[in-house]
């Protein structure tokens, strides 16, 4: 498998073509947070909304456009963290961040279990310029949670 094929694994291509969680949903929850992130290199943007139900990440939806990596990544994010409690969601975020820093090294079994489909992004870690793309949605998620926790709507 060439580096290129390792980067664009089928899982990624599928998520990119049919992204999950797209379309912001109006939320009737106590704690709602939103974040807008821009990748200044290419102008890609993601607006992501999180709704917390006590300690559970009850809803993660987003809108925006970008490259296949950023779109697939936010789609996988939605799949992974929606429904997780906050502690698990933070572990997932941390695992994804570590994967991006791993320069293409495969994650260990524990990490792989946390990451699930997101493991497919391992090849992105070899391309510093693309890590920003993969992180775009995750940055928005992290920030949206901070906003949500401030919120008492």
């Amino acid at each position: 498998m060439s580096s290129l094929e390792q980067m664009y694994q089928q899982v990624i291509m599928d998520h990119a073509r049919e992204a999950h969680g797209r379309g912001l949903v109006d939320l009737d929850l106590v704690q709602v947070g939103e974040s807008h992130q821009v990748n200044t290199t290419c102008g890609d943007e993601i607006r992501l909304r999180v709704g917390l139900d006590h300690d559970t990440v009850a809803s993660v939806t987003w809108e925006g456009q970008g490259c296949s990596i950023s779109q697939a990544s936010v789609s996988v994010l939605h799949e992974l963290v929606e429904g997780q409690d906050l502690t698990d969601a933070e572990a997932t975020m941390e695992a994804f961040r570590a994967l991006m820093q791993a320069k293409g090294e495969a994650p260990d079994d524990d990490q792989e279990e946390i990451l699930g489909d997101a493991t497919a992004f391992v090849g992105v870690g070899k391309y510093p310029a693309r890590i920003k793309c993969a992180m775009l949605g995750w940055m928005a998620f992290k920030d949206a949670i901070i906003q949500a926790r401030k919120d008492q709507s």
Partner: protein
Amino acid sequence: MLPANLREDFPLLTRTVRNGKPLVYLDSGATAQKPRVVLDAERDFYEAHNAAVQRGAHLLAEEATELFEGARADVAAFVGAQAEEIVWTENATAAINLVASGMGNASAGIGGDESARFRLGPGDEICVTETEHHANLVPWQALATRTGATLRWLPVDDEGRMILDDLDQLVTERTRVLAFTHVSNVTGLISPVQTLVERAKAVGAFTVLDGCQSVPHLPVDVRALDIDFMAMSAHKMLGPTGIGALYGRKELLDALPPSIFGGGAVKVVTMEETSWQEAPMRFEAGSQPVAQIVGMGAAARYLGGLGMAEVEAHERHIAAIMREGVAQIPGVRLLGPIGDENARDVIGLATVVVDGVHPHDVGQVLDDAGIAVRVGHHCNQPLHRRFGVTGSTRASAHVYTTEDDARAFIEALATVPAFFGVSS
């Protein structure tokens, strides 16, 4: 014709990239590679003549000053200016900002009576175009904010060509500055400089030309163009990073207040107030990028030695190969003029959008094939918005770009739609 062995002058071009593939460098529009004569000029300066210029009274300082001023004469000659009309700046962005901030400072009471002609206020207008690089747009937005003047712009058509129909309504007696690019960094289109300058002169507006993408690729003569100011960057003209220049008519430079204040630019300094030197010194506060200036002089001489008419012919030729090749690929759209006839005014590059594939993904496939291009908005968001896209993929040439490079780009580009499953 350019010399057949010209590529040997450029050490970096022998590099290999991903999986040992030979490098196909098509990102010269962002920054050019450097010939050995430029690198040697810088190194020789450091190893044999390095000293502060225009100040010391010792031998090294004399030698350094001579090299420093010699480079100024070389760069001036390269664009048809007088030496004292060339101001060193960090890059072209700084050169444009120097003019805009100088006018802002004049408007804020700096520079006294002689700078009055540069004062702007509410009711005054600054005109740019919709094809400008951020470097020739944002400084003018800031000047408008500072002074209360109004920013206007010439629109472009679907091919990126400036629409001149309303020129007389957009550039009027109220217009104090008309700033525009010589060559677009997205479409490669050469602007109708003469028409614009004539209109500006008719209404008494200063003209500021962004020469970033013209000076490295075609013959430029500031007197023939009859412009007031022009910005250029060495790193795009085979020169070092960290150095550029502003051309300005001497009488204008002598009246414009500086916007970077410090040593070397001043005449008499007391705790209360300061008087400035004449141009170009008044704009060159602080220790200058001397080694880079010497390198820029060497780059100007190198390009001049090749002959800019030859360079232009080469760059048009390469652009034509790339553009014709792109036109054959289904699902790939060329930004800018299409077709032989329309492409007459285009030089040096081909910028494309692949339907359904994001430019980052296009760039990734090309990179994997050893082809270095630029992806994104190329610091030109408004024009991309005008084209209805957020980004694009740009292949740009320079003197060392070969027909094979152009063909490698086309071949790799043709594989993109299929790779992402969007072939029609």
